[in-house]
């Protein structure tokens, strides 16, 4: 994703065509982030638009020495986390389970995962409970540490770890089921 500095300058001056152009260029990338966190595409688009507005209003503070892609990714993730915090429901907070899967069973699910396309993978991630999904996305795909996640989501590091394990467990289960049911058919 290449963004010309002139395009950014025009967006700062509220040039509508430039804003449209920037939206179009960054749309796919931002949607790929939003869809991982949102339950469906409509909800993802809603959050994407919210994040894009934040991007526009913060463009003045953007420094060219930071890659634009990384900068908008951070804004988008912050927007998603903010939204999550706003909508956080108490009953979703914690549901500890004790059983952890041992790593030997991963080979089966990894095979299944390789066979799936992006759309299917997103669907599986979307099926996770919201808090679990967020921890999984933040840790596995967006590269945050448990400490950072704990701060972002206002949970303990232990809870973050638990959500990550729970996410892996549920994803493996659903991936294997999907692939096997597909093979059976």
């Amino acid at each position, binding site marked *: 994703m290449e963004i010309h500095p002139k395009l950014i300058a025009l967006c700062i001056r509220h040039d509508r065509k430039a804003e449209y152009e920037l939206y179009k260029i960054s*749309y796919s990338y931002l949607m*790929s982030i939003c869809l991982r966190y949102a339950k469906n595409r409509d909800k993802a688009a809603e959050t*994407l638009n919210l994040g894009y507005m934040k991007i526009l209003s913060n463009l003045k503070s953007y420094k060219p020495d930071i890659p634009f892609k990384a900068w908008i990714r951070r804004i988008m993730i912050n927007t998603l986390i903010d939204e999550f915090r706003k909508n956080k429901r108490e009953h979703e907070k914690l549901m500890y389970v004790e059983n952890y899967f041992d790593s030997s069973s*991963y*080979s089966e699910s*990894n095979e299944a995962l390789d066979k799936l396309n*992006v759309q299917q993978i*997103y669907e599986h991630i979307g099926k996770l409970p919201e808090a679990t999904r967020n921890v999984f996305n933040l840790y596995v795909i967006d590269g945050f540490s448990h400490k950072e996640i704990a701060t972002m989501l206002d949970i303990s590091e232990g809870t973050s770890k638990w959500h990550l394990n729970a996410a892996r467990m549920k994803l493996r289960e659903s991936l294997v089921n999907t692939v096997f049911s597909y093979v059976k058919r």
Partner: protein
Amino acid sequence: MKAEEEFDDIFRKKAEEANFDFRQSDWEKVRRKIDEQRLAEYQNVSGVNYWLVSAIALIGSAVLIFLAIPENNAEALADEVVYQPEQQQTLTVKSLPSEPAALAVLSTGVAKSSPVSPRAFKSISSIPSSRLANSSNPKTQVFESTVVPDNSQVSITDNQQASQTKEDISKSTIESFIDPEEVIDMVTLQPRTARLSLTQFEGSQLSGNVINIPDDPEYVSKNSQSKQSFNAEFGLSLFGGWIENSVSSGNGLNLFGGLNYNRMLNDKWSLSMGSQVYNLKGLNTVFYQNSSNDFGFGSTQTQTVLTCHSMMFVSFPLRIYYHPDQKHSLSLGLHAGSLLMAKNTIEIMQLSDGQIQQYSSEKQNSVYENMNSANFLLSMGLNKNIQERVSLQVELFYGLSDLFADSDQSKLQQNTSGIRIGLNYRISGK
């Protein structure tokens, strides 16, 4: 690599491969939100600053009042000064509110001096008459042509609030200067005439009548111009306006009012500063217009139009005056103004295939970003005194600022140029 990490890695790679088609409908949604957000941002862009400016203006005015009022009113309080040498040989001062003021009146009425502080007055009274006559001190020069007797009997009467000390000082002072043998039966000094010297009394044919001493141009020149004064101004402004898309805007009569502090730099020049409020009505200026399209089955267009109808400014005029004579003065000024409030209409129309489906209109008093909050004016004026405290002022002014930011719809320079006619009232001076 552990299987667990491999699992994560596959997810990461798959997520990076993701590619999603652009949806125009998503853009339309965000575009509308951006418009709404900007509309909200335009509103009250610097509301806090306006309050701050107003507060500064108010405090500034209060300080000016404080500076201008004390120690003055030599003329205001000299309601009546009566000299009755044959009956009582008494100088009567009525309506004296305070000791310094009383002394100032005495010094003014008897000895032709501008307001004199008690200390100055005491010092005058302690100077022997022979020295007074030759003094080069401005406050004592006035006695040069005055006959100063040794056995005057003058007292202050009709001043219930005057203290004993004041009476003592006054007696001791006045006694030194009044000649009981003067032919003057009674002299009533009116506020303005109270400034005339005894020399002029002597030149008059005074015998047993109450007289009003006529204005003396020389006197007026030296004394009626207060070194500092505090003035109120108010009147009507006639703006020229402008024509845009065959519609005239911004022309018509408006009101203005303000307070000014004036300081004489020398006999001919003075400097004035203050605060002023003025309005600008009769506007019909579209300063923001936006239309957006939604394409579905047919097309839907949403139009947002903001129209300004009137504006109110607070300004801080800085004027320099030239006084060719006592009755007239010419001024040149710079008025730095700030937009305080604007009355606008917000119209939102929804058109489907060119037909209006929905229309809403709302009136709002607020300042938007497309309005220039600063308004600088240059002024050139003529003042003519029509009464002692009141002068008529005519001022031509030219607006340096464009009231509305240039937009796609308009790049016209909309400024406030025109003429003002008003009255200037001197509240106080010293």
